């Protein structure tokens, strides 16, 4: 069992593309496929005129046309639309189904649905900042968010058995994204003047957090051994439902724990790098105190990750630490992006980022267990 080559294989199996790297690469390839089509003139003289009319060619022309639509400026402009905008239907009815159709593997699908859920949260940010988040709009966003998040959960559950690493990767990513964006929405909603919008933001934030907890407990269900969970009945229900799979999974999964942790760590440091890049791009616009505090936050997170690396952390408690780092990095990044987008608002320094130096990071999380959900917000 412990043979050298098996171990070698296992060790090297941890070397893999992160979901994000994979997605970036996939996009580059799709891009290459697309540009090649578009560069080619449609009045291409083919050796055989019959070939020109073959079904395959015609269907591929249709494909190119669709891509051309998405590549067009309308579709591009629609990407920034929020509910209520003229272009919003283009975004959700044309662009997004197309993106979804391009995601072929389950992993790609999960990545896409995670992004779609993120998009809904980002739209809510814009509306909360404008103070136009009405009950109706909120309901729409919530529904769409829920659809996507549910799909991610379903895929993660299916993955849990065969590839716990990917499953953990995806669900921690969604979890940290929810934590990050709900904090941004809370911050933006708070400052709003419109009573209704403020109330709706608050409700939305509450819903998002519930969801975050649920994802976290489900994730723990698939990964690591079933631990005592204090996150209330939702978690209990998830466990009950998954009891069968969780049990079989926990046997095979212990081996992959290290790989899961390695992957989350990689995600955390990539995200942090992105946050840093964003920060250095907008540093001049920030005042000295804010800039300094953000810098400290970033270097704190870096410290956590580095310490983690030195400790060569393995096992479940270590996993919480690195998840926390990932969530913090995501939060800082989300706040930086939001600050860039909503110039009139003072959002920084990022909110709800663990500033406690090390420790087990759990103390401020009250009893919600491993998932780093924001403590109650000062609303």
């Amino acid at each position, binding site marked *: 069992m*412990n043979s050298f080559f098996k171990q070698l294989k296992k*060790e*090297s199996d941890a*070397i*893999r593309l992160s979901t994000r*790297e994979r997605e970036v690469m996939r996009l580059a390839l799709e891009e*290459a496929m697309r540009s*090649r*089509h578009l560069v080619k003139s449609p009045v291409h003289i083919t050796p055989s005129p019959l070939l020109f009319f073959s079904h395959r060619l015609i269907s591929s022309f249709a494909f190119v046309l669709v891509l051309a639509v998405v590549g067009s400026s309308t579709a591009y402009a629609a990407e920034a639309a929020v509910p209520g905008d003229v272009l919003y239907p283009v975004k959700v009815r044309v662009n997004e189904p197309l993106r979804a159709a391009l995601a072929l593997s389950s992993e790609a699908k999960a990545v896409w649905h995670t992004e779609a859920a993120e998009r809904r949260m980002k739209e809510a940010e814009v509306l909360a900042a404008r103070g136009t988040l009405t009950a109706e709009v909120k309901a729409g966003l919530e529904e769409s968010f829920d659809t996507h998040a549910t799909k991610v959960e379903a895929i993660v559950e299916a993955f849990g058995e065969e590839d716990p690493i990917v499953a953990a990767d995806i669900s921690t990513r969604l979890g940290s994204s929810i934590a990050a964006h709900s904090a941004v929405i809370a911050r933006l909603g708070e400052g709003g003047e419109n009573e209704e919008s403020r109330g709706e933001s608050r409700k939305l934030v509450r819903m998002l957090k519930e969801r975050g907890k649920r994802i976290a407990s489900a994730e723990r269900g698939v990964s690591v051994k079933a631990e005592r969970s204090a996150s209330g009945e939702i978690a209990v229900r998830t466990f009950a439902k998954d009891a069968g799979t969780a049990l079989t999974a926990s046997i095979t999964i212990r081996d992959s724990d290290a790989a899961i942790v390695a992957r989350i760590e990689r995600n955390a440091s990539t995200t942090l790098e992105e946050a840093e890049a964003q920060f250095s791009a907008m540093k001049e616009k920030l005042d000295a105190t804010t800039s300094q505090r953000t810098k400290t936050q970033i270097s704190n997170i870096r410290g956590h990750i580095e310490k983690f690396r030195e400790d060569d952390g393995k096992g479940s408690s270590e996993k919480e630490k690195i998840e926390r780092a990932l969530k913090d990095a995501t939060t800082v990044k989300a706040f930086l992006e939001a600050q860039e987008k909503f110039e009139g608002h003072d959002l920084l320094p990022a909110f709800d980022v663990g500033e406690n130096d090390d420790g087990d990071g759990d103390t401020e999380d009250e009893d919600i267990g491993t998932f780093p959900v924001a403590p109650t917000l000062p609303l």
Partner: protein
Amino acid sequence: MKDIEQSFREAFERHADELFRHASLRLPDRDRALELTQECFLKVLRYVQRGEEVRELRPFLFRTLRNLIIDEYRKGKSFSLDAMLEDDDGGTIESDLLRDDTDELENAMDRYDGSRAVLAIRKLPDMYREVLTMRYVNDLSLQEISALIGESENVVSVRLHRGLKKLRGILESE
């Protein structure tokens, strides 16, 4: 064209990780491995888009990646060609070892703890690292490796044997 692209997409989903794994064991840094993996897929894509025939994508991808890595070594200042080709056994005739020896050595290797193997493999001259990675990390057969690197199966198995011996040396010295 759509069919080709479809199978290309599938090939990407299926083989991206293993190619990346191979590249990162052969190159000093992860980012470069990432770039070369992408470059490898783009190259193959361009090739099939030109209408050239590729019978099986996986070996083709591996071969392309191999060439990219060789190019990398050629232009690289950080590592030398010597390091890649180094073979201090000098005069030994490669065919003087039988394939069976490899199996015996494999058994002997099993006494070592494999958890540091990835690190140890990185210390080997690339010539051995290449075949060992292909064999034990990417699970390619002798036959496949031989086709990939354009050497006879015998040469491959000798190289594996020497690589394993060196690997054992590294592990013992630690």
